[in-house]
């Protein structure tokens, strides 16, 4: 053990002493019990209980919403006055986070944001910026410190980076929702990977179940219900790739079907979800899951069949690389019956 390693051990131990424990076993047990009961009865919980369980376990329990392509509804005009200031920490890449404070004031027609950034533990400079836009409209702006602030005129369910967002910038972003005011705030810090720093574009699942973005784009979408959870897959013509609400979990291993047209993502280790798309023209699709895995199959408006498989457990090992799906059988465009067995690579 050399001096550097000794310092690391001592320093990490001291640093860890700053942490606190805010966990109560009864809360954990209660949330899991509620979720298990929901599965046994096969009925959705009331919104409040579902929200509590979903926040802890990651499930999203929503009442069914029709998914159509429409812009977000205009929010009611904000009453003049101050909104509650919001605080965001950005610890990405450092253990001494910056604290971003967003103060907001509405005069009924214009929403003005005052944004300041400072090192949370003191020292360093404070940077300030201003941003304003019309109440009830989406607006965004770039502020000092590679900060991007956006206001969405809806209390969204979830927000993500938009499809086709340039990869020349890495974004670390957070969002806050004010249901009473009917708006959402997204604050992002950009880390340029080259010389450019692009402005992020967002897509969100609105409070009415509609998928929208800041450009008024039209999305194709498919909603599947699996394990009592609504799962939405969306894509946009001309843009490679797709998105999901809730976001698809990290893919630890990718199934590579040796050049066939089936693509299956996820389903390994601590990932408990698998998503797949079948070749164009596939019909009479049967997806056979592994034990304790539920599957839902549906067809996007472009005619392509998708499936989602979700396990009701979390694998104990990262090295468990078995797919959640045992086999996929379908009749291809030529009328031939095909069975595909996913393998992990």
């Amino acid at each position: 053990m050399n001096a550097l390693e000794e310092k690391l051990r001592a320093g990490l131990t001291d640093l860890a002493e700053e942490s606190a424990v805010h966990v109560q076993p009864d809360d954990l047990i209660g949330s899991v019990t509620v979720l298990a009961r929901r599965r046994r009865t096969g009925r959705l919980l009331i919104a409040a209980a579902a929200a509590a369980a979903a926040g802890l376990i990651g499930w999203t329990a929503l009442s069914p919403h029709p998914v159509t392509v429409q812009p977000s509804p205009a929010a009611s005009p904000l009453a003049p006055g101050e909104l509650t200031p919001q605080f965001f920490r950005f610890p990405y890449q450092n253990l001494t986070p910056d604290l971003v404070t967003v103060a907001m004031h509405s005069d009924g027609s214009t929403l003005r944001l005052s944004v300041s950034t400072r090192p949370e533990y003191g020292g360093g400079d404070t940077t300030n910026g201003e941003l304003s836009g019309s109440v009830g409209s989406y607006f965004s702006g770039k502020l000092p410190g590679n900060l991007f602030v956006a206001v969405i005129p809806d209390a969204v369910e979830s927000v993500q980076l938009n499809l086709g967002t340039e990869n020349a910038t890495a974004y670390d972003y957070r969002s806050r929702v004010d249901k009473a005011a009917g708006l959402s705030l997204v604050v992002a810090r950009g880390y340029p990977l080259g010389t450019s720093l692009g402005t992020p574009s967002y897509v969100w699942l609105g409070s009415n179940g509609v998928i929208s973005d800041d450009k008024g784009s039209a999305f194709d979408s498919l909603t599947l219900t699996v394990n009592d959870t609504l799962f939405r897959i969306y894509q946009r013509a001309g843009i490679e790739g797709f998105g999901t609400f809730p976001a698809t979990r990290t893919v630890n291993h990718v199934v590579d079907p040796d050049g066939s047209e089936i693509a299956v993502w996820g389903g390994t280790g601590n990932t408990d979800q698998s998503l797949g798309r079948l070749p164009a023209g596939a019909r009479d699709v049967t997806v056979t899951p592994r034990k304790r895995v539920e599957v839902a199959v549906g067809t996007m408006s472009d005619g392509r069949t998708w499936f989602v498989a979700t396990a009701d457990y979390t694998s104990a090992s990262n090295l468990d690389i078995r797919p959640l799906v045992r086999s996929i059988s379908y009749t291809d465009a030529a009328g031939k019956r095909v069975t595909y067995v996913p393998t992990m690579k």
Partner: protein
Amino acid sequence: MFGQRSRRTQEFTTFVDSSARYLARTAYLLTGSQDLADDLVQEALTRTYAAWDRVRVQDATAYARRVLVNLTIDRHRRSEPVPLEWSDRPDAVDAHARSDDADEVARMLAGLTPRQRRIVVLRYFDDLTEAQTAECLGISVGTVKSACSRALASLREQYTPATNGEPS
């Protein structure tokens, strides 16, 4: 059935009482944020309880730690926050109460990549072996060795030990 559930609950409660502090400290070092650490520890322990029937008690801490580490990786890659209600002002942390070692280590870690930081925390705070670290992160032992070596090389550039009793 009622007796089994009570034993299960008691086992898990005992586990949480003994492991929560350790998991919270690991989460804090991995994320640098008390709020994030709270959320991740809560979710990791919830998932552990959900899988309790399949988890051996003696392996529970390792299981929960593995879930926790993967949640931090997921968060980093996914970059999609769950929308929260308006929050109160965060608690202030008295940075001046921090030891010199902690302060210096915090600055040193700031220069590492997320993967390097995870490996350094698991190896030098959690005291995992290279093989245990590899299993926790789902990577090979060789990758752990090389990433750790690069991390230490990077840290060595920032750290100059005092000589002759004088600060560098």
